[in-house]
């Protein structure tokens, strides 16, 4: 067979092949060499990125004739069982193409960043092998043309998350977090697999083209009664698939693994939170949306069961996680809860049928969340340095000893935002890029990508609400509240980290001698003696900061492709995304009418949240031990007056914020998350352990008892019976005589 691998139909195979090849080469051949492994991994991901760009351009060109109708792909038979054939294949339609724009690029950025971040790690090669596999699995998932291949990518990613979260496996907490991630997501995976199997039995195929692009198949699924729980087959399959997403994308109640997943190295967090893992869950429901919404006329308020579940679960998760994020002091944990919350936005968006908006937010979120995590990695690196310095010189030591194992409320000192402050001067580039990422997350109006996608979701929910759909109203309310909180906690995190003065000795010495400074590089260029003299460290600075800049650019500009056409001025950009992506669905999703009200609400919420954060943490940054310098300078009189002007501040602090923080920390984190949910999970786990123990006992006592008992009984009988054989002739004769007598008597009775 003559295959032109650069044909758009076959090129996708190469895209996913190269990172997987890198993994194979690293594991089998280059594991001993750090440099070689890095080169292999970088080559793999670079090639994947380049090929993805080529593929993307081909799709866009092909789409000019008739948007989205041109779908590239090819399949091979993988396994045939009787009449069933399982196939492997790739498919590139506009949705996949859009993902190809994000996934390889985000991976590439994370890989480059890892070169710097993992520099000193002894298991560097292993790390690059694993993340290559991770990237390859995600690309397999995105390019798959059928659910089975998607599932393969899905599961391999679960494995990678386990390996990478627990990468520092000598730390008990890291290993436990890896297991927790793997097991929690696996609960969802297994339910999803049941859905995949059921779908296969009903349709005899798992190909997206045969299922999602064929109204007859969907129709049939809707009209088939389901085998369990009533309802239609389509609904049951849909619900099972959504369960997969609830696990993978960390939705309530399977969200608990994600905040602990930060036990892994920071590039891994970026990988999991942005480019791969959690995005995969949302991608799957976006991909399967025609099936999930089958039989429901959601434009007219008739939502299918999977959609209602997505709306409720996603909406609730968005708000719940946002509240939790407010009460965190660990910088990575704040970001982790914010990821959960943002994923909730996407899932809820699908629940109300905002398909394009969900995909749009998925990609934008990936860009800014990867950025935020990588920034937090720089901050932590720099703080680690400071903590080390502080420990060496005996300045305020870390408050807690590191616990043995995973403890929910333990904050590692370098991650603690309360121990930071004033890092802006040490890490200017990071501070600025993190501000950009944070503004995008908060949905700062007009200039950030996050604003446009979040606004679109809220607009769609608003649209549904005006039509009088209760689900849309619920989604609108929770997402709006969550948007306010998002803006607030983002501001809080940024100001506590970068603003004001260092609050601990560690923060004061943070980043000293560390690599992250443009000034050093600049000095080097001008041949002045740099602060850090190791030339390798300058390279590290570049490796870690260039990805930040690239992603910061995307966190701003990735949003302009999806601006509503009726938006003043920017509407002239023509909203190419909607038209492009719509080609994926048979029935083009309608563009809802432009409405000022939701836009203004979005703007107000974002700015409101940011403003509260700014007032509380920006205007008067938290100081070391709360000795406010302004008070001394102005004297008590004026100070009192000023104090009175801030009654509102105090009121907010006392009656809104403190109770809110109290609720977040005390009730939600400690009572609900730790006691109830973890409690339920733990008691379920304990139930199983108990059952295992009971079975073990049963196995020993009853089954082995019977199994061993019979031979023992035979043995006992034998030893008892042995007593008959005494060896005394007299006794034998006695028995014989008695026996003869009895037989004779019986004989006489018979005859007589």
């Amino acid at each position, binding site marked *: 067979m003559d295959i032109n691998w650069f044909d758009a139909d076959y090129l996708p195979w190469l895209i996913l092949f190269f990172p997987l090849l890198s993994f194979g080469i690293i594991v089998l051949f280059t594991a001993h060499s750090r440099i070689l492994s890095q080169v292999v991994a970088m080559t793999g991901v670079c090639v994947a990125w380049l090929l993805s760009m080529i593929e993307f351009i081909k799709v866009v060109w092909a789409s000019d004739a008739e948007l989205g109708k041109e779908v590239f792909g090819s399949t091979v038979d993988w396994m045939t069982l009787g009449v069933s054939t399982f196939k492997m294949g790739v498919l590139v339609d506009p949705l996949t193409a859009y993902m190809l724009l994000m996934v390889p690029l985000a991976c590439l950025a994370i890989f480059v960043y890892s070169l710097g971040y993992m520099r000193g790690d002894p298991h560097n090669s292993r790390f690059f092998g694993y993340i290559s596999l991770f990237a390859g699995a995600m690309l397999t998932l995105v390019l798959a043309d059928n659910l089975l291949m998607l599932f393969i990518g899905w599961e391999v990613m679960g494995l990678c998350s386990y390996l990478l979260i627990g990468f520092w*496996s000598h730390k008990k907490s890291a*290993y436990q977090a890896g*297991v927790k991630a793997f097991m929690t997501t696996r609960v969802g995976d297994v339910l999803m697999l049941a859905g995949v199997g059921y779908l296969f039995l009903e349709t005899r195929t798992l190909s997206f083209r045969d299922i999602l692009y064929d109204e007859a198949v969907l129709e049939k699924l809707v009209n088939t009664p389901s085998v369990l729980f009533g309802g239609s087959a389509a609904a049951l399959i849909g619900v099972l698939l959504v369960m997969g997403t609830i696990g993978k994308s960390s939705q309530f109640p399977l969200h608990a693994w994600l905040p602990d997943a930060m036990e892994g190295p920071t590039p891994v967090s970026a990988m999991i939170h942005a480019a791969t893992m959690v995005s995969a869950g949302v991608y799957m429901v976006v991909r399967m949306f025609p099936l999930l919404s089958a039989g429901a006329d959601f434009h007219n308020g008739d939502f299918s069961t999977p959609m209602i579940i997505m709306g409720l679960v996603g909406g609730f998760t968005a708000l719940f996680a946002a509240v939790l994020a407010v009460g965190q002091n660990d910088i990575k944990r704040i970001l982790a809860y914010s990821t959960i919350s943002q994923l909730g936005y996407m899932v809820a968006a699908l629940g109300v049928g905002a398909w394009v908006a969900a995909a749009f937010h998925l990609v934008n979120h990936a860009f800014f969340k990867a950025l935020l995590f990588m920034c937090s990695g720089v901050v932590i690196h720099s703080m680690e340095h400071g903590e080390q310095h502080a420990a060496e010189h005996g300045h305020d030591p870390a408050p807690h000893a590191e616990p043995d194992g995973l403890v929910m409320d333990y904050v590692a000192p370098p991650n603690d935002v309360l121990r930071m402050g004033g890092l802006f001067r040490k890490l200017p580039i990071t501070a600025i890029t993190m501000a950009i990422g944070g503004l995008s997350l908060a949905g700062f109006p007009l200039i950030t990508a996050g604003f446009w996608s979040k606004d679109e979701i809220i607009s769609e929910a608003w649209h549904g609400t005006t039509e009088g759909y209760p689900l849309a109203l619920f989604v609108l309310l929770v997402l709006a509240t969550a948007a306010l909180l998002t803006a607030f906690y983002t501001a809080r995190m940024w100001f506590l980290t970068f603003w004001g003065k260092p609050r601990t000795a560690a923060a004061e010495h943070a980043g000293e001698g560390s690599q992250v400074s443009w000034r050093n590089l600049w000095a080097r260029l001008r041949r002045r003696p740099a602060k850090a003299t190791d030339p390798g460290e300058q390279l590290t600075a570049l490796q870690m900061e260039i990805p930040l800049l690239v992603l910061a650019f995307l966190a701003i500009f990735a949003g302009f492709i999806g601006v509503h056409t009726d938006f003043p001025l920017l509407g002239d950009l023509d909203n190419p995304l909607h038209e492009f992506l719509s080609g994926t669905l048979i029935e083009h999703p309608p563009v809802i009418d432009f409405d000022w009200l939701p836009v203004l609400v979005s703007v107000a919420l974002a700015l409101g949240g940011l403003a509260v954060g700014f007032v509380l943490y920006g205007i008067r940054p938290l100081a070391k031990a709360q000795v406010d310098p302004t008070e001394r300078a102005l004297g008590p009189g004026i100070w009192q007056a000023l104090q009175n002007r801030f009654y509102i501040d105090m009121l907010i602090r006392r009656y809104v914020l403190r109770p809110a923080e109290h609720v977040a920390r005390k009730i939600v984190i400690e009572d609900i998350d730790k006691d109830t949910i973890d409690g339920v999970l733990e008691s379920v786990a304990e139930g199983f352990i108990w059952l295992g123990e009971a079975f073990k006992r049963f196995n020993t006592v009853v089954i082995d008892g019977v199994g061993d008992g019979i031979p023992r009984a035979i043995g006992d009988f034998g030893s008892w019976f042995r007593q008959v054989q005494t060896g005394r002739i007299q006794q034998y004769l006695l028995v014989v005589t008695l026996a003869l007598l009895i037989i004779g008597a019986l004989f006489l009775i018979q005859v007589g």
Partner: protein
Amino acid sequence: MVITFSGVLTGILLTPIVAAVIILLLKDESKEQARIVAALAIGFTLLLALGVFFGYNVDEANAAADAGDTYFAYEDHVKWIESIGVSWHLGVDGISAPMVLLTSLAGFCGVLISWGMEDRTREFLAFFLLLVAGVYGVFLAVDLFVLFFFYELSIFPMYFLIVIWGWAKTREYAAMKLTLYILIGSVVALIGLLVLYFKAGQATGVYSFDFVDLHAAAQAGAFDTPFFSGSDATTARLWFPAIFLGFGVLAGIWPFHNWSPDGHVAAPTAVSMIHAGVLMKMGAFSALRVGVQLLPEGAKAHLPWIVFLALINVVYGALIAFRQRDFKYVIGFSSVSHMGLVSLGFATMNVTGMTGAGLQMFSHGVMTALFFACVGMVYDRAHTRDLPSLGGFVHKVPLVATAFILGGLVSMGMPGLSGFVAEFPVLVGLWKGPGFLPDPGWLTSTFNYYGTIALLAVLGIIITAAYILRVVGQVFFGVYNEERFPHVTPITLYDKIALGLLMFWLVLLGVYPRLMTPMIESGVKPIVSMLGG
């Protein structure tokens, strides 16, 4: 009286026996020569088995299946004891060809990893070769007398291997337990087999143990007549449980499974590999060949409740594995759990599920051989299998850790590895259920019986992931205890070859299942067509 004779299969069967004799003739000190002879002998059978595997003609087999005939490749058929209808009839079909390959793989790797064994090496290897020959005999036999002969033959070296070279603490108990369980099971099955022999003889006038003849008799309805006159219980219905469960004892079916974990643990490493990897398949294979294939009506009547036992196997074995403190017991109970999936696959009575079961037999065989090899290598270094005292072995024996984790991923059904391509069809087949309604009407009238079983079996897969990760965490990760295990030697080249060979097949089959699926399917089709599915 040679009817056909290609010699390949007889060669596979006799080579280990000849080698065993040669080894016994060697001098006591010539341990190295004994090892080389053993490795060459099993290596030679491995090559033959590969030849049989790749030379197997699937199209011919399918054509025969479509015509309703039995099909065996590479037949050796020589008249033997004509007075009672016994012949030396060997052959492979789509189900047994992979099993022969599996046996040679596990046997070859077993010899490699026991290279360092110094205690009565010659005797050990001779018994080991005899054991392997017995297993070959079962998989190759077409004549059921031959099958039975080798079935018993494989138990006797097993007893000595465990009693002499086993783990001192439990070896006598375990060896006795194993022998008794399997012998009693096989006697029950033998009585069933004799019933079939006489029933078929009465019906057709030809008294023969040859599977082909019995199969023809079955097709002619010889076993569907009432067993006692005046009762409506047919031979098939009455005797199916005896044959299926009698052989099923060796497949570890609940509640007759307890010989297996004890036996696995007590046996020396190479024997555990054969024991869990191949011997249990022998039980499942015989139950399928003699039970299901000859008594389809009995299968239809009884498998719908036996599927429940299989489900218990899956979940129960996994839960107990989760609570073990002994490394080897975890793997022992995992075999109980995974063999349940094989029985579940049989019980689906459709092509998808039964092909999955065939794949699972191969996949589990390789996987569990790999597991036991890893356990043995860790035990040889740590001299303890107590999980809480181990830890950090990834730093000392990285390849063993990699192999164990790979095996673990196979066992939890990770896509891309052989476990997934085996378990997925079993579950899909189970969800689909058999092509007919199970006998007791309430099973299907009230709820989806097979679908529910499938969902519950999935639970076993989740628990599998839990106990595998637990063991990986306790043995390979965590902190290494330098004081307790100060001198750890790296694994030898032989060990590496064995691990590599086993891992290779797990990955190969996972990525390219078409290597084996058409073959197994061609073996399953005639069974399913007799079941009417």
